[in-house]
């Protein structure tokens, strides 16, 4: 987005659950970098280009007219985003997660994702109430791994992807701190 005449971006678009995503290509014509408002055109995938008039209302808040249609968008850095280009985006009453990628860096990106074993760690301090899987189990994406009690409630921690349970670090009844590894998943 360095003020070039047109920018192409690969976009990964997700909804609430991190594993429901779709990929798009977007082309944006020369938005002036650092400006507070502007007029440009943009194009999603193979659809026809559309005129876009945008205004930054406040940091992270945009009013966008696509043609005449008015969209109010609120952009915040995605919780837990590693890179700088992952955003939580609210359009009207809909919430998306948007990842922006330079198309040249796109190749190999997917291959590097979710490779090798991965630790599932505690998202918050709490107590492990129940472990739902055994070592060696194959688990599905979204399957419950264990139950943590925190903030007055029991919460099921689910698997971020399909895989095999390589190791279980957690013990039932034990307290855990944020970030403590709980389960190690290996690829299938």
């Amino acid at each position: 987005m360095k003020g070039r005449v047109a920018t192409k971006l690969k976009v990964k678009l997700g909804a609430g659950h991190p594993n429901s995503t779709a990929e798009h290509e977007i082309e944006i014509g020369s938005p002036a970098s650092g400006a507070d408002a502007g007029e440009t055109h943009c194009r999603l995938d193979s659809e026809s280009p559309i005129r876009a008039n945008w205004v930054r209302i406040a940091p992270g808040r945009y009013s966008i007219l696509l043609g005449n249609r008015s969209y109010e968008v609120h952009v915040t850095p995605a919780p837990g985003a590693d890179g700088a280009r992952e955003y939580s985006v609210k359009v009207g009453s809909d919430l998306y997660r948007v990842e922006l990628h330079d198309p040249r860096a796109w190749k190999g990106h997917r291959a590097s994702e979710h490779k090798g074993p991965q630790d599932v760690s505690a998202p918050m301090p709490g107590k492990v109430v129940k472990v739902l899987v055994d070592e060696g189990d194959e688990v599905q994406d979204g399957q419950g791994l264990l139950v943590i009690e925190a903030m007055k409630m029991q919460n099921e921690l689910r698997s971020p992807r399909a895989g095999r349970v390589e190791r279980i670090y957690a013990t039932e009844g034990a307290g855990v701190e944020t970030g403590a590894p709980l389960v190690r998943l290996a690829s299938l």
Partner: protein
Amino acid sequence: MRVMRACREMGIGTVAVYSEVDRRSLHVRYADEAVAIGPAPSRESYLNIGRVVDAARSIGAEAVHPGYGFLSENAAFARAVAEAGLTFIGPPPEAMERLGSKTAARDLAVGAGLPVVPGAQDLHGFDDVEQAAERIGLPVMLKAAAGGGGKGMRMVTAHEQLKSAWRDASSEAYNAFGDETIFMEKLIERPRHVEIQILGDRYGNLIHLGERECSLQRRHQKVMEECPSPVADEDLRRRMGETAVRLGHLAGYWNAGTAEFLVDADRNFYFLEVNARLQVEHPVTELVTGVDLVKEQIRIAAGQRLAIRQHDVVMRGAAIECRISAEDPARDFFPSPGLITAWHMPQGPGVRNDSGVYEGWRVPLDYDPLMAKLIVSGRDRAEAVARLGRALEEYEIGGLETTIPFFRQVLKNDDFLAGRLDTGLVSRIIAAAGADQPGQRVDVSSGNGTGRLTTEAQLAGILAAALEAGSGAVAGVREPGANGAGEASAWKRAGRDAQLNNWPKRNL
């Protein structure tokens, strides 16, 4: 906040108590005076009777309003307040005790011939169980007399299941609690949870202010309430109201209270328990009856006579409340504390906001995740529902996940729209949402039926993200020194505190 607003309108000075982590809370900022009463754990602050009473006395307070969490139903607290020479804004401790336990309240109701869920207690052998089942009629639930938490619970729908169910239940009860005693309750299928608001003075005047429909519950916690109940007509309202008032008289009750009932498909109602305090969901009653319940509580505690009589209570229109919590509905309602980077509330006709938080405030891990209540009203239920949809669309909270997307789901449910509510509806709505295809977003329609292209809305969102990436700006409110990793550091700090005192709090 709710209580302090009423006090300001009455010209009464207010004193807030606060724990160490709550110095920045809105109730401290809004109060005329504020007294620190201890560290974050509620046991050492908000639940510490001695400290709360000392604080009130030290500052020369005249009366104590217990809110609706913490000590609000604690008879010992009410006594301690009175013994310190202060007025407790709530029911008399004797009435709290008479109605305080479910069993005591049930016994009182049974004694007076009021309807309770048919049941039988203290069943010690299969003969007991079989006789009870005959009397009550299937289907029934068997429950461990000694405990809760689902242990020793069995549902029985046919006579031939009775024996094995009893065997399982009693052995489970014995293993869990060392006591194999069982009790039996008639199973109310798809019950509604409907409650009656009562209000009484010290002189025996006791009225009811109609019902609230509170069937929408998740894990036995109410999430959405409305007034009137779609199931209630004048006759049912009058009969339930009279039952609630009768119970209040029997218990020597005064001030505000709530009698909870189950209502079955045939519109029979069964008394459950009494909440001897103000309820979180009281605003829906206020909007429909026009009565300010907190002010009435204060007047009653001050020894005034009730100015409203039963025939003055006129219900007009409909109201719905949503409890907006820091929980992530897309991740099984996982708690989502953190820094609030944006907080824009809806406004306009028929919208009431009761919020205890603000932009720049950090929702702590220490207490209940309830942040705010959105209450809408309309000429009828349909208008209130439409308004709720509009208001939820206007609501914007940044920095953490909230239950707002869940309420949007509810508004798309046909049973909800038709007023066919029961205590299992929320689970069914969540299950249905979870069955959505991956790749589809959680919240499918834009909710206003204007037929915008979804892809175009997505395009707007992507464009804004690209603009934001190009702007180099850090969005939203940031704490000094915090950066994009603000979320992570919130968890870290919580980790340091390493304590999990989880009591309802947030004085809205």
